[in-house]
């Protein structure tokens, strides 16, 4: 087994037992980047020099540390992690995938980046993404599309396209992402990795280029559920610099992982198994459900009646917030002038400007905010009946590059199964559950707000079942 193939927990064990050095681990990922990035275009910036330098320092440090400290104080000691290029990294170019910021070098770290570094992680590079996180395929990047490693003629999903590909190919052991309507969960499903969108407010948004502030969630891609739990423990928590982050205690997700409740009740929302969902994906999900039933988990069909209104609601609220957030880019303090915005950013700015304007505000924006309440209530009601929900992540398998670029509405529809959870601010886990036609398929686990430990527990159960098959 090559070092880049390791999960975080395996790599930690190897480092603790001195089987290899931090430098060897980092070099292995860098080699993988050199080999695959020219084809897959997952990274906008590779921090080769910085990462190797830091790895050397860490190797010196490790001699002074006891293993206990690596486990406790530095839970990500020496682990190479990639960051979506939306996360500000001090001294490292941060483009948000847009030409507008092609020369922007932040003078501070996003809170997530600061926490990862404090936990001992090494930032190995900045990953490609749809510009401003606008997109479901990675094709809206001003730095060229990222390709799906399972089939280079297909999209890896988006907007966190490069992060998903980086983890799927071992270019990094984990990667950060942002999820506003599915931008972590959908590419995770398309690339066969684990993607976690935490509850809104669980992880600080400070220092991450804002897309839609009432929806944006910071999360991550990992190779397995265990690593997802480990990283969440590091990045979650209240941040003075993000007033919308919540002061709730951060539990030990990793420890709780193997202690799931004996009587989980899992709901199967019928509105997620609709026409337009590929038959083979449906079969795959239902097979998983059967496996769970055999394990004694209770399954119940439930209903979220306002699901079909979620996409229209989202495509009013999100562009409205986008138009406001992107108003700050004036090319005066940093970045290039507004004519550098790409087509999708322009489209969303205009859509938002329109639906917020007098005479239209009530019919579009206010109406959408009210329907959002109904969608939230749907989830509140359903979580009185069941603990968690299981659904497909995407209605289709990874589609072809270019297939939907000229049809924005079709592109928007690819997020139809991830958007409702975003509107309700609840956490979601995207989990690989095997392949169909040699392409990965993902299952989505949703839970009530701040029930991350539960969705991770169910994720772990499913992961074990799938790996045994």
């Amino acid at each position, binding site marked *: 087994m090559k070092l880049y193939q390791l999960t975080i927990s395996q790599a930690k064990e190897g480092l603790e037992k001195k089987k290899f050095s931090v430098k060897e681990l980092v070099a292995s990922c860098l080699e993988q980047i050199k080999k695959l990035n020219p084809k897959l275009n997952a990274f906008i910036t590779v921090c080769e020099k910085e990462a190797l330098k830091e790895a050397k320092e860490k190797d010196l440090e490790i001699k002074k540390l006891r293993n206990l400290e690596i486990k406790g104080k530095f839970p990500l000691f020496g682990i190479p992690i990639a960051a979506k290029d939306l996360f500000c990294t001090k001294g490292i170019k941060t483009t948000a995938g847009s030409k507008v910021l092609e020369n922007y070098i932040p003078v501070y770290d996003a809170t997530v980046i600061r926490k990862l570094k404090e936990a001992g992680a090494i930032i190995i590079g900045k990953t490609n993404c749809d510009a401003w996180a606008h997109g479901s395929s990675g094709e809206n990047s001003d730095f060229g599309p990222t390709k799906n490693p399972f089939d280079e003629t297909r999209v890896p999903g988006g907007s966190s396209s490069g992060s998903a590909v980086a983890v799927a190919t071992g270019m990094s052991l984990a990667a950060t992402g942002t999820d506003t309507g599915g931008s972590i969960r959908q590419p995770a499903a398309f690339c066969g990795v684990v993607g976690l969108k935490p509850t809104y407010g669980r992880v600080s948004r400070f220092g991450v280029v804002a897309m839609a502030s009432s929806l944006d969630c910071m999360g991550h891609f990992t190779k397995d559920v265990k690593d997802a739990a480990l990283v969440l423990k590091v990045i979650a928590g209240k941040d003075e610099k993000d007033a919308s982050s919540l002061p709730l205690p951060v539990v030990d997700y990793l420890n709780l992982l193997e202690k799931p409740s004996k009587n989980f009740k899992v709901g199967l929302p019928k509105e997620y198994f609709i026409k337009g969902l590929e038959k083979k994906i449906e079969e795959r999900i239902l097979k998983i459900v059967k496996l769970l039933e055999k394990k004694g988990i209770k399954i119940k069909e439930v209903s979220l009646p306002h699901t079909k209104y979620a996409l229209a609601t989202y495509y009013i609220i999100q562009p409205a917030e986008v138009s406001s957030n992107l108003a700050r880019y004036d090319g005066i*303090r940093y970045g290039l002038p507004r004519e550098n915005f790409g087509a999708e950013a322009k489209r969303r700015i205009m859509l938002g400007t329109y639906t917020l*304007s007098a*005479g239209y505000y009530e019919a579009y924006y206010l109406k959408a905010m009210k329907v959002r309440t109904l969608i939230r209530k749907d989830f509140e009601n359903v979580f009185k009946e069941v603990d968690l929900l299981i659904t497909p992540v995407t209605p289709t398998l990874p589609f072809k590059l270019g297939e939907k670029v000229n049809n924005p509405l079709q592109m928007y529809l690819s997020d139809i199964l991830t958007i409702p959870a975003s509107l309700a601010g609840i956490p979601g886990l995207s989990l690989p559950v095997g392949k169909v036609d040699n392409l990965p398929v993902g299952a989505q686990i949703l839970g009530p707000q701040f029930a991350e430990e539960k969705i991770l527990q169910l994720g772990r159960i499913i992961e074990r079942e799938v790996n045994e098959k």
Partner: protein
Amino acid sequence: MKKNSKFSRLPAGPRQRRWQIPCLSGRQANSKKNPKSKIQNSKLDEEEVGHIAKLARLKLTREEVKMFCFQLSEVLEYMKVLNEVETGGVEPTAQVTDLENVFREDEVSPSLEPNEALSCAPAREGNFFKTGVVLEK
């Protein structure tokens, strides 16, 4: 920028009403008490697209205007599905975690040095960002 156009956030003036009439012609008579609360015509024409772009400080080419006319109209048309939903008496959701009144002590703490804050500025003069002329005498 046209003042009091239908996109302006200013209170409705006579001009604004005149702007809205072509959009609603024929429908207004049939619609219920409050026509504003339902999505009516969702077709955008080139003039409207041009105007929205102006409000958003975006410069569009002729081709882009044409493309956006079609694409935005299609997306807005899709949103009509929301007309089906009964939302009488429903409170709007602006945020999902019900946090209220998040305060902190108003204390002075270190922040960016001027040189750091200006490090990405395309043009500076002393410790200031330098911009083009906005207001003329």
